């Protein structure tokens, strides 16, 4: 099963990893004593660990290849993805859905405030992920500056609250609308570009918004940010800190449900079909009479609307915002959620957000290597499951003319 060549290759891989991690894991400088602490043992760990991982992946790959060969020869049937199997049978997924619903409903009662806070953050990323999913997953437009619209929403609430004392519920729709307006303003010039160019321009836009917020101090209070933003009101009743967190939690859950509902409806609609078709073939779409610009612009600005609303919620949750919350890393994480979860798949994006946001929290045990583990998991996922955790179950549309 494993040839001599695999083992030699594995040793080379191990050496390469030792070389790569050498400065990080082996050399430790002690600045007080001005001495270097050599941790040779770490080298052995890294070497043997990467060697083992390599051999295991080789074995998995070999088995996969064998399977594919057998499928080609007709010896075994192609496996249907488990996610597709699960979601095609209500008998299987309804109890699961009920369990998930009960879990999220009881969550604040079962866990500490700290955990609830983390969960709120994760759920906000679910909203952001679902919003970006419209743009990237469904319409196929690579947007690397998504966080800009998130910032627009957050600053909308912070500023309107500070200057005019407007409350959460008033600003939530305003944040969404402003997000949409910014989406349209950016979209009109930019959506003529394709693929890589679009990605670069949106990336630039994200940075511009952040730099404006950082430097236009009289407007946004610069890097020191805006604090004392009001929490969402509960019919005029003052809530204790703990209660207001629980309240925020349920608000976020509601927002997630609302988002799922809208995205789901959208994918089944005319515009949803146009998005899908546009991703497949632009020329054909034009020949069918689909307005290319308008269709793309709708996806782009809808995504921005959701980012705007999520931004308002973010400001309301943290009560303090500054430009550091809206860096490119944030856009990258949201994009990872969409890609890792499974482009275009609603359940996938939800699972992706929960995994990606909760995992680093619970990986705190390995605090120093948290980001390393995060990166490694992303790489491994993309090699073994490029379609994402939950592959899209492509909807087949009911055909207008089919009257049977």
């Amino acid at each position, binding site marked *: 099963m494993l040839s001599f060549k695999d083992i030699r290759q594995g040793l080379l891989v191990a050496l390469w990893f030792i070389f790569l991690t050498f400065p990080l894991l082996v050399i430790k400088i002690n600045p007080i004593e001005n001495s270097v602490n050599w941790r040779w043992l770490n080298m052995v760990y890294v070497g043997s660990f990467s060697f083992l991982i390599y051999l295991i992946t080789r074995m998995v790959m070999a088995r996969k290849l064998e399977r594919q060969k057998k499928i080609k020869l007709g010896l075994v049937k192609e496996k249907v993805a488990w996610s597709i199997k699960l979601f095609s049978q209500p008998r299987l997924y309804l109890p699961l859905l009920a369990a998930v619903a009960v879990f999220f409903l009881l969550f604040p009662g079962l866990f500490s405030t700290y955990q609830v806070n983390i969960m709120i953050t994760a759920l906000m990323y679910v909203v952001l992920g679902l919003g970006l999913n419209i743009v990237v997953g469904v319409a196929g437009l690579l947007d690397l500056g998504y966080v800009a619209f998130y910032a627009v929403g957050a600053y909308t609430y912070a500023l309107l609250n500070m200057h005019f004392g407007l409350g959460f519920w008033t600003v939530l729709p305003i944040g969404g609308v402003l997000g949409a307006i910014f989406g349209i303003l950016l979209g009109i010039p930019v959506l003529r570009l394709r693929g890589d160019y679009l990605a670069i321009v949106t990336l630039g836009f994200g940075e511009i918004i952040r730099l404006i917020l950082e430097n236009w101090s009289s407007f946004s209070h610069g890097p020191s940010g805006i604090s004392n933003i009001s929490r969402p009101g509960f019919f005029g009743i003052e809530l204790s800190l703990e209660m207001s967190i629980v309240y925020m939690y349920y608000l976020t859950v509601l927002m997630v449900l609302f988002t799922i509902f809208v995205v789901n409806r959208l994918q089944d609609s*005319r515009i949803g*079909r*146009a998005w*899908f*078709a546009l991703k*497949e*073939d632009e*020329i*054909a*779409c*034009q*020949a*069918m*009479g*689909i*307005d*290319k610009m308008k269709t793309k612009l709708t996806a782009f600005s809808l995504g921005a609307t959701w980012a705007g609303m999520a931004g308002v919620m973010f400001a309301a949750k943290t009560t303090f915002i500054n430009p550091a919350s809206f860096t490119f890393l944030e856009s990258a994480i949201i994009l990872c959620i969409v890609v890792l979860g499974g482009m275009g798949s609603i359940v996938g994006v939800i699972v992706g957000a929960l995994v990606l946001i909760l995992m680093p929290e619970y990986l705190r045990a390995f605090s120093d290597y948290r980001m390393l583990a995060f990166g490694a998991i992303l790489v491994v996922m993309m090699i073994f499951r490029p379609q994402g955790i939950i592959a899209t179950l*492509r909807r*087949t*549309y009911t*055909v*207008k*003319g*089919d*009257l049977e």
Partner: protein
Amino acid sequence: MLELRNIDTYYGNIQALHQIDLTVEAGEIITLIGANGAGKSTTLMSISGISPPRSGEIIFKGKPIHELPANKIVTLGISQVPEGRHIFPELTVAENLDMGAFLRNDKRGIADDLEYLYDLFPILRKRRNQPGGNLSGGEQQMLAISRALMAHPQLLLLDEPSMGLAPLVTKQIFEIIEKINREQNTTIFLVEQNANLALQIAHRGYVLENGRITMHDQADKLLANKDVQKAYLGI
């Protein structure tokens, strides 16, 4: 029905069409023949608004359309089968056809057209739940034509329906094009490399060379013309 006056179309700085003048009468099959790169596809793209002309006028049923966006032109009744078919590979055959009716809302009419097309191309009915990408080249061409017809156009722009098809399949498709023209009274603008076949079913023909119209006449006269025979019919 359709009139092109002094059309100039550019790709960036490169001029692909020079002063194209051309008319299409309602109910006829007209063909545009020419060598590779002559500008045939560009002519169709100019009409359908996908590569709009830089100067000149295009009049459809008395109205200028050269400044309208592609989607508006489809609404007016011009539907294009782009070169190379361009079907949606992941959508099923039925969904592909449904995309053709994207701008329509008359359920009854759509159902009738679908029935008509399924009768015209029985293979499509048989494969209606398979992804378009799984069809053979000929079947994809049938799908592309059917999809364009789902818009119920008055003018159908066909770009090289014979491309990459076996002679027998080509013949079958050309027969159906004639049939559509006869039964549905759809005007057809046919662009073809296969000048022989195209001129046999067309009423009139235009010859395009390096972006300019060099000849136009009744189809049978072009077939008999010595220059055309030498250049395009391989006789």
